[in-house]
């Protein structure tokens, strides 16, 4: 085991200190005592942190192991990044059925948070396309397959059933190498929801201008996309944020000006353009370490989903946000389907809203208020993003929590895989 290191999740607001091992060979991993694992630490809060002990960094286990061109089933090690899978297989006519907003997320992380993509309303969550998961449970390899309690406790299970070693994904056929994206301005909240409700595209997502108030409140750009064929300009070299930005980098006037320009970028009558796949699926991956734009104190992402019937409540939440002047340009509104693959999976049929806030007292207060709103709306908060929620409130949002606890107690009776998130929200005790 190595020396103590300081590390954080993607939001950088919560920190942990402790030993982090980065094995590259299976037997080195097997030599360690049972230890919770992280991948690329793309979860925002404390899901990848363990202040009470050690962590295993799984990013060294990133190899592709087997592919069956008949079925599209691909077995990879848990640390393989979803963007790398796409880059290698799209030219062969296959694509991961579900991809989150960053290609840097590992397959293990995608499973442990049961992530969703811009096509959730059609294909469900990540776990719905996983056919096998191999776990390391207290030194022994255990296989979980769909339909079992262990599988449902592992998918979206925050790593509490053991360390995910490898998994088999059922890739989807794709006959193209780029995205045909139709962008439309949604002039206000009602139009925004209407566009999302009536969209029939394979991939649909709304960018929302979280600084717009009054009659333009909720305005944004709805993107609808299909996979297509053709030639587009290669994406430019990636940029890197070299240091923590000063506080004013994302202050209210800057964000308002940026959002205005971003909204006007799309012509009033809309447009259809061809974009490289990576640009559409992973828009921010071009800017390495973009989380440093929020400065040393880091940031929070608030993400909730509320049922369709709570659209009005969500509108009120959006009003609360837009009048606060605290939001950043990164704000996403999306209609979700019902698909979820694990006991603690986030999705529910409804609308999901995700917004970044700099880590300041006013923003933390706002997020807490939004959490109460979410609970009252019958909605749910996302463990991949949460850093501030109150345990009892968030536990109440997951009706299958006790089923998960039962299975986790079987898989990890000593609590060796607990993380800061699990302890903070007291997820494992009844």
């Amino acid at each position, binding site marked *: 085991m190595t020396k103590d290191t300081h590390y954080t999740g993607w939001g950088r607001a919560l920190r942990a200190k402790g030993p982090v091992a980065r094995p590259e060979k299976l037997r080195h991993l097997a030599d360690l005592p049972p230890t919770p694992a992280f991948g690329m630490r793309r979860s925002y809060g404390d899901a990848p942190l363990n202040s009470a002990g050690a962590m295993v960094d799984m990013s*060294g286990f990133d*190899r592709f*192991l*087997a592919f069956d061109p008949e079925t599209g089933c691909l077995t990879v090690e848990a640390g393989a990044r979803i963007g790398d899978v796409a880059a290698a297989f799209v030219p062969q006519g296959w694509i991961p059925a579900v991809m989150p907003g960053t290609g840097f997320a590992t397959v293990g992380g995608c499973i442990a948070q049961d992530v969703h993509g811009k096509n959730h309303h059609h294909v469900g969550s990540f776990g719905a396309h996983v056919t096998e998961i191999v776990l390391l449970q207290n030194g022994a390899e255990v296989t979980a397959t769909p339909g079992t309690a262990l599988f449902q406790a592992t998918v979206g299970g925050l790593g509490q059933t053991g360390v995910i070693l490898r998994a088999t994904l059922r890739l989807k056929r794709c006959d193209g190498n780029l995205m045909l994206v139709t962008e439309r301005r949604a002039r206000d909240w009602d139009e925004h929801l209407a566009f999302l409700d009536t969209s029939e595209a394979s991939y649909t997502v709304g960018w929302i201008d979280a600084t717009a108030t009054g009659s333009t409140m909720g305005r944004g750009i709805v993107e609808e996309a299909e996979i297509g064929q053709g030639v587009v300009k290669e994406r430019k070299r990636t940029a890197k944020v070299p240091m923590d930005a000063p506080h004013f980098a994302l202050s209210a006037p800057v964000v308002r000006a940026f959002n205005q320009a971003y909204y006007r970028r799309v012509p009033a009558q809309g447009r259809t353009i061809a974009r490289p796949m990576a640009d559409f699926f992973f828009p921010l991956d071009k800017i390495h370490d973009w989380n440093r734009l929020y400065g040393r104190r880091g940031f929070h992402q608030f993400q909730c989903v509320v049922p369709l019937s709570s659209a009005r409540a969500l509108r009120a939440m959006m009003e609360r946000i837009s009048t606060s002047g605290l939001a950043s340009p990164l704000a996403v509104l999306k209609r979700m389907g019902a698909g979820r693959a694990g006991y603690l999976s986030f999705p529910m049929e409804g609308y999901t809203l995700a917004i970044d806030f700099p880590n300041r007292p006013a923003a933390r207060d706002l997020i807490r208020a939004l959490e109460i709103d979410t609970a009252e709306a019958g909605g749910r908060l996302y463990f991949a993003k949460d850093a501030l929620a109150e345990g009892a409130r968030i536990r109440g949002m997951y009706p299958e929590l006790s089923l998960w606890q039962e299975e986790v107690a079987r898989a990890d009776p000593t609590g060796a895989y607990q993380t800061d998130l699990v302890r903070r929200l007291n997820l494992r005790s009844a």
Partner: protein
Amino acid sequence: MQNWIVLGATSGMARPFLRRLAIDGARLMLAGRDMEELETLAKDCKLRGAAEVETIAFDIRDDAAFAPLIDKLSATQGVLNLACFVGTMPEQSAIDADPALIDAVVTDNFTGPAKFLSLLAPVMEARGEGVIVGVGSVAGDRGRVGNYVYGAAKAGFATYLSGLRNRLGRKGVHVMTVKPGPVETRMTAGMKLPFMAKPEQVAEDIMGGIERRANVLYTARIWYFIMMVIRAIPEPIFKKMSI
């Protein structure tokens, strides 16, 4: 067809380099000691686009086994290239406690690779094309109190590669010396080192260096300037420094 034999293929630094070659559709020969790891790596390279992947049991300390491999390589169809990532770095304190370790350090980082390359040199000369990439280290540029046996071995290897470049360059074979600063791999796990590079960045730099036929490549690039300064420090001052 580009063929690459990669010595020390299971090293953390070699992995992203192998993937770059795989994406370009090269034929790969992965040589190393850990056959199980090599097999897994081979599957990965194949799935990422390599035309063919072969694994070869290879130990840099076992020079008796070099000749059959050289014979095999000389029969390769297409362009033959080699990259050597072989190396070990025990703690200087461990070497101080047991100077017998010096033999292994010198074998792994210098004389082993040098013997292999000397056997391969006539093959490459006869072919009149191809690239040899030898991985040294910035540690070879100056003997530092914390790492001077490893540094001495890498310095020896760098000088050897310089001569080999001189010899093979006139026959159309390019020899590139790579001098990485600290890279985030198993070798450096848990160490706090300045200007750590990711192995992906090193791979990217090596590919660029091959393309423009660089002779000596520092990666990350900043190490070129850092080592220029460190080499320029007069010995009377340097001997009092602990850097």
